[in-house]
């Protein structure tokens, strides 16, 4: 690893920590309703929204009603995104007269954006009208992220409340997450990006006359649009769906090393800050740090592996960004369930490509999606305290809440679902007639492309390995199912746990209680995540990147 690469990594993590700490504290105040300054400015908008939609902000609900509201809202959003794509030709905001999106791709895209995956089975600038980008995809970028944060807040209430029936009001949590957190941060980032040259316009493409006409071609269309706003939220909300097909490798999405640094920070900012929000809300700051450190420890070896492997490998990378910044991005985007890319992971060395793949397969829990990463990690924490609680001879408890059969059932389900979806999807692809024609490479690398695609979709990441043509009927349909299942079959068990925990009493800590905020617990948590991830995917990885690596250069 070069000195410059190392410096970049150290500066990146320090900057992330320095930003995440105050943001975490601020978010805790938002959810506690104590963000006084922001409430003075944005409060009227919040109250106006509640009045408009008839939300009684003071009324809280049990986990079932919370889940129903969440599902209704998400399904409605999904249907809306699907319909907008299907009729965009006849709507305004389509200066380039892009045709309606075919149904399979529209379904895949609708699921993808509603589930905060942002897998793109299409090329952005050549498929989606400005209206679709803004009203369908842009809106989902905000609310799918806010949905994840709302679920996390409900879980926090499960831990902090005792003998309580209610876990909160979904509409309030959704509104606050969007209005007080995602919107201000996005505006800030968008302005920074515009200042560094990212386009922001409602107009169509620009035309450039070529200085050296190539044959009959003497002009080039430069796709423009409301880019900066889309990029800001796609990075902050762990969405990842770019305006352009080339995503953040495109010079208009990510023109300079500085924008690259900002965008890369935005990838992990909210997921990292939420650790500290959690610590503040459960009144145990060490717990927040413990979770952050566990996530960091999980990411670090893969980051080092990727940066080390990619040193000197410029294939598929942007010259203006370089290998280290590309490998750092690849790690961060798969650590978070973001999925935006600034280089083509398909061109990585086998082990360099294994790093992002494994980070997704671990279940997107370090750091994972906004909200979803942390609640996913808490599911692992439940399993970890269960086993370790048994080992010290006491019914396990996490933050004073007893972990019993019901919690185990739900946590196991939440951990199981993405593993099952990834493996089943990959296995089906192996027998699908579409696959041989969709692969760009033969041998283990071709298999890696398929494994990566399903790891990405079944963990709601959305990044693509490139190489695989994923717009066929099998890939759009199966991928859509994976994304759907991996999102909601986790959210519902997680909310069920929130409800069950809220009803329990809180057990005071004693010397017999296993501390869940110290280094020992971090080791346990990391071990649990690694064991489940590693044990599940070792055979598949052996057939993909490992066989490719050991096989040497073809």
């Amino acid at each position, binding site marked *: 690893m070069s000195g410059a690469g190392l410096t970049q990594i150290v500066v990146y993590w320090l900057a992330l920590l320095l930003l995440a700490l105050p943001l975490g504290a601020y978010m805790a105040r938002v959810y506690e309703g104590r963000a006084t300054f922001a409430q003075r400015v944005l409060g009227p908008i919040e109250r106006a929204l509640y009045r408009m939609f008839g939300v009684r902000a003071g009324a809280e609900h049990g986990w079932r009603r919370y889940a129903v509201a969440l599902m209704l809202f998400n399904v409605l959003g999904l249907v809306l995104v699907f319909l907008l794509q299907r009729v965009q030709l006849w709507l305004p905001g389509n200066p380039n007269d892009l045709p309606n999106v075919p149904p399979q791709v529209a379904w895949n895209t609708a699921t993808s954006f509603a589930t905060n995956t942002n897998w793109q089975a299409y090329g952005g600038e050549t498929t989606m009208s400005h209206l679709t980008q803004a009203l369908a995809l842009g809106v989902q970028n905000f609310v799918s992220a806010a949905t994840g944060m709302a679920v996390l807040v409900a879980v926090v209430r499960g831990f902090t409340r005792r003998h309580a029936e209610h876990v909160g009001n979904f509409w309030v949590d959704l509104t606050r997450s969007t209005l007080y957190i995602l919107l201000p941060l996005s505006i800030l980032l968008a302005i920074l990006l515009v200042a560094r040259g990212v386009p922001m316009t409602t107009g169509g493409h620009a035309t450039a006359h070529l200085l050296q006409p190539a044959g009959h071609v003497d002009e080039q269309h430069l796709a423009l649009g409301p880019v900066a706003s889309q990029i800001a939220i796609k990075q902050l909300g762990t969405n990842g769906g770019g305006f352009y097909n080339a995503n953040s490798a495109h010079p208009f999405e990510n023109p300079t090393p500085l924008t690259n640094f900002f965008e890369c920070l935005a990838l992990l900012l909210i997921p990292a800050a939420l650790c500290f929000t959690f610590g503040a809300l459960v009144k145990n700051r060490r717990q927040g740090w413990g979770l952050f450190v566990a996530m960091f420890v999980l990411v670090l070896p893969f980051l080092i592996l990727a940066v080390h492997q990619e040193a000197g490998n410029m294939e598929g990378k942007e010259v203006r960004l370089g290998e280290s910044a590309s490998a750092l991005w690849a790690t961060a985007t798969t650590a978070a369930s973001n999925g935006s890319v600034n280089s083509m992971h398909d061109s990585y060395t086998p082990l360099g490509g294994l790093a992002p793949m494994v980070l997704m397969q671990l279940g997107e829990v370090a750091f994972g999606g906004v909200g979803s990463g942390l609640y996913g990690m808490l599911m692992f924490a439940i399993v970890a305290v269960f086993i370790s609680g048994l*080992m010290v001879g006491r019914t396990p408890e996490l933050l004073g809440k007893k972990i019993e059969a019901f*919690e185990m059932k739900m946590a196991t389900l939440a951990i199981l679902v993405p593993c099952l979806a990834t493996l089943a999807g990959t296995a089906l692809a192996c027998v699908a007639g579409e696959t041989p024609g969709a692969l760009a490479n033969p041998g283990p690398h071709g*298999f890696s492309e398929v494994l990566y695609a399903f790891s990405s979709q079944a963990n709601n990441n959305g990044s693509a390995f490139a190489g695989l043509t994923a717009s066929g009927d099998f890939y759009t349909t199966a991928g859509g199912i994976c994304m759907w299942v991996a999102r909601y079959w986790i959210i519902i068990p997680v909310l069920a746990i929130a409800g069950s925990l809220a009803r329990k009493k809180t057990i*005071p800590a004693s010397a017999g209680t296993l501390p869940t905020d110290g280094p020992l617990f971090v080791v346990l948590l990391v071990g649990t995540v690694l064991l489940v991830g590693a044990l599940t995917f070792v*055979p598949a990885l052996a057939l993909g990147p490992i066989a490719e690596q050991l096989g040497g250069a073809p």
Partner: protein
Amino acid sequence: MKAPTPRPLFDAPIARRAALEALGKLDPRRMIKNPVMFVVEVGSAFTTLLFLHAVVTGDGDANPAFVGAISLWLWFTVLFANFAEAMAEGRGKAQADSLRRARREVPARRLAEPHRGAATTETPSSKLDAGDHVLVAAGEVIPSDGEIVEGVAAVDESAITGESAPVIRESGGDRSAVTGGTRVLSDWLVVRITTAPGRTFLDRMIAMVEGAVRKKTPNEIALDILLAGLTIIFLLVVVTLLPMSRFAVEQAGGGAPVALTTLVALLVCLIPTTIGGLLSAIGIAGMDRMIQANVIATSGRAVEAAGDVDTLLLDKTGTITYGNRSATGFLPARGVAEAELAEAATLASLADDTPEGKSIVALGTAVLGRAVVAPAGAVQVPFTAQTRMSGVDLTDGRAIRKGASDAIARRLGGGLPADVRSQVDGVAKQGATPLVVASGDRVLGVVRLADIVKAGIRERFAEMRALGIRTVMITGDNPLTAAAIAVEAGVDDFLAEATPEAKLAMIRDYQDRGHLVAMTGDGTNDAPALAQADVAVAMNSGTQAAKEAGNMVDLDSNPTKLLEVVTVGKQMLMTRGALTTFSIANDVSKYFAIIPAALVSTYPQLAALNVMRLHSPQSAVLSAVIFNALIIIALIPVALRGLAVRAAPAAVTLRRNLLVYGLGGLLLPFPFIKAIDLALSGLGLVS
């Protein structure tokens, strides 16, 4: 108390019987209750079919010897797990047999009216119903559980408790309960039967010992869910590996897809068979350890809850201190020799039959170095509630009295001398009871009566504290006395001037703050508190009401047993946790054995993953399977004996167990799998 002789782990007759029962337990209807081992059984049957197919066609899934060997070892895996369970059950059965002998049918004399003189009819014990009254005379066996309504008798309860000395049982009070199967040695009793036939204490005990009513405990259910979850994941890993491997063969254009036999072997090696196979044995062994400690729990749930308890309510008398107060010193008044005080106090106590009186005589004899004999003509003055004094009037005119300081002061009229008053205050401040001794109107001094804290109890409490368990002393004493004893015994808290209501309120208060409370009790007035507590150990000598309210009965009636109960509860959970960790950690090495073996024909470069340098792919798979089966046998002693519970904070215990069972589980299989591989290839058993 019957000293429970620890049974050897591998008792030959029990092991023989267990080996046979292991075969009987192969019934799939039984196996399905244990999903992990059921999967292994299905895998065994499937490979057996593959073996038959390979033998018949000569060209099956893989070479017939390999398929046959894998199949055989998979069957062994199931059998070993069944054997572990049968061993655990077998150890309890011996006890059940001796209990069953006590339960045999006896003729009973049913009374028409609930008193001795009523007419009787001969009724077999199994026909007695709750509410019937029976007469039991000396030499007869009490036909069923009940409450004495009339009479007092010595009862031999050795059939149940193992205690050979007879106990006194009488109507009224806290010693009125009798147990069916015990024998009346003297006198007679009229007993009101309190339980329906088949529901007696003895019946429940036998069922408990045999494990017939063993329900899964809450933590066991939660663990089952986790194990089932892991099994599902690995099932899918293995099932999806087949199409992936076929795809790889197409892509690579060479090699053979992974064999079905190898897939089944991989599955069995990956699913947590070690803990799955030993889980029920751990539970049964935990109950067995309780029974060996002479504690009968009404459910496994109660045993497990004992491990979670973080607050122990302990009665002072009998648990923390020896039953009664004893004289521990003579404090003479100014100008009085200690010998004079000792002699006077002893004279005043000679006729005092209370334990306190006896302790004064004993101390006096020790101080004087000779026995004191009552002079002829001395008149004993017994203790009355009005005078609150006792003593003796001697023929020489001396009237010796001992009693509470205010009672003596009243008798003297003018109060106590200043030096005696300060002695009285000093003794009271230490938590002891001062008795003032006076001869005529001359105050001789003070006798100090104090509670004697049991030897070693302080250390036990310190251990409990290290485990995160707080101890609370319950006493009827005044707060001052209680505080002094609390300090001496080293309890964390105390409840003075305790009433049954105060006890109940205290338990509720602790529970409201999230604590889990355990207590012991024997009296009827303890019943509400016993019912409220999370873990309640009733003394076998106690009343029926107390036994019904509790969820455990201590046959030795030893309140200190609560500490052992907590330890057994913890042990059960720890053993499960440790073996689960071990089982999962084992998987890493098995991957290194099987994955290269399974895929090497497609991608020869994967041979680099064969870090153990195992002889051949078939030898690698077989070695992993054999290790997986043998480790179950190797861990049976751990499952039956349980992990040692040491007094240490949770974090320390976890670190140690994590090192031993986590890291150990990760590393241990490598050398053993290699050794098995060397043996197999050395003996030429594999190609």
